[in-house]
C-alpha cells in the first residue's frame, strides 16, 4: 500500500502532464489556424499560399519558449558530453593502477548517462520543431546555409548512441582496452556533434562566408567563423566543470541518503572527485572566456561593447556574484575536507589568509563601475562612479582580482593535496621555497600589471590581461609539476578517512551545482542576447514582437525557472538511475498479486531477477 501511493501519484502526475501538453499543442494549433468563414468556399480555393515569417507561442511568447527549451537542451547536452570525458579518464586511471574503486566510480558516473541522453535528444527534437514552427523563415535560412552539415550530424548522433550504450551496457563484458576504446569513441563523436552545432549558433553571432544580403559564399568560412573555435574550447571546458558539479551533487545526495559508513565513504570520495573535476576545469575557464571575448571584439567592436559596456554590462556584475560564490564555496569545501585526515593539520592555519584573499578579490570583482544612486547622491559623489570605489570597477582591478582569486583557489587545492603528508625527498626545503617564490612573484607581477593599467592608454591597457593570464597559468603548471615530484614517496602523518566530513559539505556541493547551472543559463543568455535585434548579426534582422532586449531582471527570472525545471528533471534522472541498485520485486507466497514487499538485492522471483 505504501508503495502503491507514490506510484499512483506518479501515474496521476504523468496523466496531468500529458493533458497539459495536449492542451498546449491544441492552443498553438488553434492560434495559428484562422476560423473558416461560412459561405466562402470559392474564396478559399483562390487564396494564395503565404509563408509565415513568425508564429506565436501562447502565454509566454515564442522567444521565452525557445529560450527555455534551448537552455534545457544545452544543460542536458553539456552533462551528457562532460560525464564521458571524466568517466573515461577515471576508467583509464583504474586500468593503469588496477584499483577497482576507480572502475566502480567511472561506472557510477556512466549510469547517469543513458537517461540524460534520452532527455537531451528529446529536448533537441523539441527545439528543432519549435524553431521550424515559431521562426520558420529564419530557420529556413539557417537550413539553407548549413544543410550539408545535417547528414553528418545525424550519422554522428547514431554513432554516439552506439558508443554510449555499448560503453554502458558493455561494462565488464569486454576486454578493458576494447571498453576504453568505446569510451574514447563516445568522447570523440560527442565532441564532433557539439562542434557542428556550435557552427550554427556561432554563425548567428559572427556570420562569415556570406554576402551582406546573406547569400552563402563559402560554407567552410561559415563554419570556421571567428567565434567558432573559442566557443568550442570554452564549451568543452565549461561542460566538464558543469558535469563535474552535477556528478558531485549526485554524490552529495547519495551521501546524505547513505545508511552505512561504507556508502558514506564511497559517496564522499565520489563527491570529492566530482568537485575536483568541476573546479579543475573551472580554473582555466576565465582564460577561455578572455579568448572568446577577444574574438567577439575583433569581429565587431560594436558587439563587444554592447557586451561589456552597453546593455549587458550589468550582467557581468551578476556573473561576478555567481563566480565569487563558486570560488568561496569550492574553497570552503576543500577546507572542510582537510578534517578528513587524522590528527592535527598544521596547514589549516593558512585558511584564514586564503579566506581574506578570496573575500577581498570577490569584493573587487563585484564592484560596479557606476552605481545606482539618487540625484543628490550622484551630486555628492561628483558622478555616477564612487570617488574611491569607482577605481575598483574597471577592468584593470577586475582582471587582477580574478587572477588572484584563481591563484588562491589553486593554493587551497595544493594545501588540501598535501594534508596528512610530509615531503620526504632530500630537496624538500628547496622545493617548498621554489614553489613559494613562484607564487609570490606571480602574485606581485599580476598586481603590478593591474596598477600599471591605470597609468597607460587604452591600447596598452587592453593587452595587459594577456601577461596576467599567462603568468597565472605558468604558476599553476610549474607549482603543480614541482609538487608532483616533491610528494613522491611522501611520509604519511595521518590516514584519509573518507566519509568523515560534516554533512554541510554535501549541501555545499549541491549549492555549487545549482550555481554552475545558473551561471551557464546566464552566460547562455548573454551569448545569444548579444545579437539584440538580429537573428544573424548584421545579416538577418529580427522583426518579430520579441526583437527587443528584455531587462536583466526578466532574463534572470527565465534563467531561474529553467534552472528549477532542470533540477526537477535531473532529480528524475537520479531516481531512474538509482532503480538499477534497487532490490528486486518479489511475489508473496500464496498470493496471486504481486506484492510490494522487497527482499535484499537481486530478490528472487525468476521473472524479475536480473541475469
Amino acid at each position: 500500500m505504501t508503495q502503491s501511493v507514490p506510484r499512483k501519484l506518479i501515474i496521476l502526475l504523468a496523466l496531468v502532464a500529458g493533458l497539459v501538453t495536449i492542451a498546449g499543442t491544441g492552443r498553438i494549433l488553434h492560434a495559428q489556424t484562422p476560423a473558416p468563414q461560412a459561405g466562402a468556399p470559392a474564396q478559399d480555393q483562390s487564396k494564395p499560399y503565404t509563408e509565415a515569417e513568425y508564429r506565436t507561442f501562447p502565454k509566454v511568447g515564442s522567444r521565452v519558449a525557445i529560450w527555455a527549451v534551448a537552455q534545457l537542451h544545452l544543460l542536458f547536452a553539456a552533462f551528457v558530453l562532460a560525464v564521458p570525458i571524466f568517466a573515461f579518464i577515471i576508467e583509464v586511471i583504474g586500468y593503469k593502477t588496477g584499483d577497482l574503486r576507480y572502475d566502480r566510480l567511472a561506472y557510477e558516473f556512466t549510469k547517469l548517462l543513458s537517461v540524460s541522453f534520452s532527455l537531451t535528444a528529446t529536448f533537441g527534437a523539441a527545439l528543432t520543431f519549435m524553431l521550424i514552427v515559431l521562426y520558420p523563415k529564419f530557420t529556413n535560412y539557417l537550413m539553407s546555409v548549413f544543410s550539408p552539415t545535417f547528414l553528418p550530424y545525424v550519422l554522428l548522433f547514431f554513432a554516439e548512441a552506439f558508443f554510449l550504450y555499448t560503453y554502458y551496457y558493455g561494462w565488464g563484458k569486454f576486454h578493458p582496452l576494447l571498453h576504453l576504446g568505446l569510451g574514447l569513441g563516445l568522447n570523440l563523436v560527442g565532441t564532433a556533434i557539439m562542434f557542428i552545432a556550435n557552427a550554427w549558433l556561432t554563425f548567428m553571432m559572427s556570420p562569415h562566408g556570406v554576402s551582406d544580403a546573406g547569400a552563402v559564399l563559402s560554407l567552410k568560412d561559415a563554419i570556421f567563423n571567428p567565434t567558432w573555435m573559442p566557443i568550442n574550447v570554452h564549451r568543452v571546458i565549461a561542460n566538464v566543470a558543469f558535469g563535474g558539479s552535477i556528478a558531485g551533487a549526485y554524490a552529495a545526495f547519495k551521501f546524505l541518503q547513505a545508511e552505512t559508513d561504507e556508502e558514506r565513504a564511497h559517496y564522499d570520495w565520489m563527491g570529492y572527485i566530482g568537485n575536483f573535476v568541476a573546479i579543475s576545469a573551472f580554473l582555466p575557464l576565465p582564460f577561455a572566456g578572455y579568448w572568446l571575448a577577444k574574438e567577439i571584439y575583433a569581429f565587431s567592436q560594436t558587439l563587444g561593447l554592447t557586451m561589456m559596456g552597453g546593455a549587458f554590462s550589468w550582467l557581468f556584475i551578476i556573473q561576478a556574484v555567481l563566480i565569487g560564490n563558486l570560488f568561496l564555496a569550492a574553497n570552503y569545501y576543500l577546507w572542510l575536507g582537510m578534517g578528513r585526515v587524522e590528527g592535527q593539520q598544521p596547514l589549516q592555519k593558512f585558511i584564514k589568509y586564503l579566506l581574506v584573499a578570496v573575500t577581498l578579490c570577490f569584493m573587487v570583482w563585484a564592484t560596479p563601475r557606476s552605481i545606482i544612486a539618487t540625484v543628490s547622491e550622484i551630486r555628492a559623489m561628483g558622478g555616477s562612479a564612487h570617488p574611491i570605489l569607482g577605481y575598483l570597477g574597471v577592468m584593470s582591478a577586475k582582471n587582477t582580482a580574478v587572477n588572484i582569486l584563481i591563484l588562491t583557489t589553486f593554493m587551497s587545492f595544493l594545501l588540501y593535496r598535501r594534508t596528512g603528508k610530509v615531503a620526504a625527498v632530500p630537496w624538500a626545503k628547496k622545493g617548498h621555497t621554489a614553489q613559494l617564490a613562484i607564487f609570490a612573484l606571480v602574485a606581485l607581477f599580476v598586481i603590478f600589471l593591474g596598477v600599471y593599467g591605470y597609468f597607460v592608454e587604452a591600447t596598452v591597457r587592453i593587452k595587459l590581461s594577456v601577461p596576467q593570464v599567462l603568468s597565472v597559468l605558468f604558476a599553476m603548471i610549474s607549482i603543480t609539476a614541482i609538487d608532483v615530484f616533491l610528494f613522491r614517496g611522501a611520509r604519511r602523518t595521518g590516514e584519509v578517512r573518507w566519509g568523515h566530513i560534516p554533512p554541510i559539505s554535501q549541501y555545499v556541493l549541491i549549492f555549487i551545482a545549482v550555481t554552475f547551472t545558473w551561471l551557464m543559463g546566464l552566460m547562455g543568455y548573454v551569448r545569444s542576447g548579444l545579437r539584440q535585434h538580429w537573428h544573424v548579426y548584421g545579416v538577418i534582422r529580427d522583426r518579430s514582437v520579441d526583437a527587443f532586449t528584455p531587462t536583466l531582471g526578466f532574463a534572470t527570472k527565465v534563467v531561474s525557472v529553467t534552472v528549477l525545471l532542470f533540477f526537477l528533471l535531473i532529480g528524475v534522472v537520479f531516481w531512474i538511475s538509482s532503480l538499477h541498485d534497487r532490490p528486486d520485486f518479489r511475489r508473496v507466497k500464496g498470493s496471486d498479486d504481486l506484492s510490494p514487499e522487497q527482499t535484499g538485492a537481486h530478490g528472487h522471483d525468476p521473472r524479475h531477477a536480473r541475469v
Partner: protein
Amino acid sequence: MRIPLILRIGALVLATTGFYTYVGQMVPQKEVLPPRESTIGPGMTTDDMVRIGREIMEGKGLCLTCHTIGKTSGPLRFPDLAGVDSRAKTRVAGLNDVEYFAQSLYEPTAFVVPGFPPAMPPINKPPIGLTDQEILCVIAYLQTLGGTPTVTLETKHHYYGGGK
C-alpha cells in the same frame, strides 16, 4: 521532526535560485528596443538635423556606447567628442570638418586618433547601417560640438551615394 532530505535539498535549490533572481532585480533594469527609423525628409532645417543627429547617436548609431562627450576624469576607451569640430577642421590635411567626419564614419580606419585602437566599424554598413541622410544628421550634431553646424540635406561629400 526531521525534515525529509528531498525537501531540504529542494529548499536549498529554491533558495539559491531565488537569491540569484533577487540579485538580478537589484541591477539597473533597462529594456533595449530595436532602433527607430528616423523621419528625415525634405524641408528639414539644420536645427532639425542636429536634433535627429543627437537621437541617432544615442540610439541607432550606438555612438555613445563607446564615445563620451565632456568626460573629464578617468581613462578613455575611445576619443571624447567634446570640442571635436574644432579638431576636425585640422586633423587631416586637405579635409575640412565635414569631409573628416564623413571619412571617420564611412571609413573609420583611414585615420585613427593616436593612442586609440582602430576599432570603429563603418557606420553605413550593418549592423548599424545608417543611411547617407542619417549620417549627414550625425555630422550636423558633431559640428555643434565646438563649432557651428553648416550641413544641410543637400550637402555632398566624398562618400555620399556610395562615392569614394
